[in-house]
């Protein structure tokens, strides 16, 4: 295991995951998701492996990888905090909470804090709009996320790291 809580890049493991999925119709997104689940990001060394498995060009693989907001191309923090900044959460003051989180972590949305425990990312709607502001920590949804709740989430994530 690497520092990120994900496995370190491993070409053999990547190839195994690619081969599990290569026969699916429209396999590219499922492959990217699988690699990101395994390694926390999609290493550029995966591009030729995928291109050859799906019989498409490197450029096509790169083009799809870079189109979608979800896919990371660099290793990230051990935990991922997504904070919603769409309209419903704006109406409940998410921008104030986001400023608080950024000040606390010393990093802007999209960045990873110094001890690499946490990557914070903006997201546009988590479907929890009756309980705005919303956030998601490692795939788990939270509602009514005030600055205090955000602190609680950050402390929890760092404690587990």
């Amino acid at each position, binding site marked *: 295991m690497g520092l990120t809580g994900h496995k370190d890049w491993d070409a053999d493991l990547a190839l195994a995951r690619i081969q599990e999925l290569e026969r699916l119709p429209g*396999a590219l997104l499922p492959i990217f998701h699988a690699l990101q689940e395994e390694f926390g990001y999609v290493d550029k060394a995966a591009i030729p492996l995928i291109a050859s498995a799906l019989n498409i060009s490197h450029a096509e693989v790169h083009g799809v990888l870079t189109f979608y907001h979800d896919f990371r191309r660099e290793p990230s923090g051990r935990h991922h905090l997504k904070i919603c900044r769409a309209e419903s959460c704006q109406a409940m003051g998410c*921008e104030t909470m986001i400023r608080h989180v950024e000040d606390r972590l010393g990093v802007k949305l999209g960045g990873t804090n110094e001890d690499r425990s946490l990557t914070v990312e903006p997201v546009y*709607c988590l479907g929890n709009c009756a*309980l705005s502001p*919303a956030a998601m920590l490692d*795939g788990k949804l939270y509602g009514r996320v005030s600055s205090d709740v955000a602190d609680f989430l950050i402390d929890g994530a760092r404690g587990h790291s």
Partner: protein
Amino acid sequence: MSLKIFVPGDAAALSVGSDAVSRAINEQISARRIDATVIRNGSRGMFWLEPLVEVETSRGRVAYGPVTAAEVPGLFDVGFLEGKPHKLHLGLTEEIPFLKTQERLTFARCGITDPLSLSDYISHGGYRGLERALKMSQMEIVEEVTNSGLRGRGGAGFPTGIKWKTVLGASADQKYIVCNADEGDSGTYADRMIMEGDPFVLIEGMTIAGLAVGATSGYIYVRSEYPHAFRQLKRAIAIAHEKGYLGASVAGSGKRFDLEPRMGAGAYICGEETSLLESLEGKRGQIRFKPPLPALKGLFGQPTVVNNVISLASVPIILDKGAQYYKDFGMGRSRGTLTIQLAGNIKHGGLVEKAFGLTLREAIYEYGGGTASGRPLRAVQVGGPLGAYFPASLLDTPLDYEAFAERKGMLGHGGIVVFDDTVDLAHQARFAMEFCAVESCGKCTPCRMGSTRGVEVIDRVIANEDRAKNLELLADLCEVLTDGSLCALGGLIAYPVQSAVRHFPEDFDKPAPLPPPATGSNQGVPSWR
């Protein structure tokens, strides 16, 4: 018989601690040696009361909420299993005014049944629509849906039956049913609720669609922001397969229908049907030119029905009770029920399923109870990030596709985001343009370039540089986006921007700049600064 206690497993309920409540209840059950079972139901859609715990009593289900884990022992002490009084006691769930006056057709089972129990689904009227459909010809099924007046609930409002008819009429070796579960509009969560709270109704609706048009394969494209819904669908699909409701012979009919959920990857544009199809094919989510329509040349070039979750989840009841039953709800050309989602600065946020025709005011005040902050309402945005901002003076607009179109707005997927008087509409207009720039697929120039230019022009308006001239330029730019964009993203972005200018001109006359913006950016997201 074992007592039943319901603790929602819906993601929104989980987001305010329903797992901890469920654990605390299970601890009390074992400590007190009570014969009771905790069922993780969907949400009733009264989110200000979540976690909402219900107990089954001889009088019906009694609700308590919002319950915290710490309060659970106290609930047992007062005898909540018999529905006894407590400060969180809400009475019979069905009698709670927010629920009592609703007309729940699509959401008839959501929050009531165990979402992953097929026997629960069937005993509450599930698979009756499929049963009837199996006795009908393909054309009869399509006609039933057409006659019901059902229009696409994703936002465009296109008649569902007509789309199906086109696919039925196309000849091909393979046809597809694709469910658009890329519910990206802020203020909406109905798709998520149904996928988590009653997934079999979506599976049944898609199966009926497959029978109707002759498609043997279906995909549900779920946004990655909904990992919980994705897992729930996977489980439900596995159960339906195992019990013979999916696969080689649907309900013993000899007709095949297979279903697979796929996860999106954080692109708002993939809610546009042709982008979604590209994405499913493993490509960049760039929109396609139309024609050809997806109904004729859709997924992998084959005839494809693309429908929203709520549209498909409304099909079983239409087949079960008949087109006329469904059509009797609603007004004008908007038939059936609308799933209104109350969001943003709202006291009682939640899901209201009602016949079309309720006014915005009734939805926000009678159901929503006004703003959460207690401050005056100043603006509402209906229909997601591409919907218009309405001032309080338009609150008497009925929730109906045509009424909104007349007022240069749109109903979209039924989300209502409420803002109090602290909102700055110039800031919201800027956000709309910025959102368009972030999420543009880049295929057409008006949207790709126009949105970035739009942010710059609004910045100049806000900074009071040649304001009149720049507002004129903004109007011109909006016209180009409206007329020149290939899809609804660029095509509708003028709605929030120009409605803000039109209804809230005072916010564009402020000499002071916007409050300092919050953040930097991620993955090509343009900076606020």
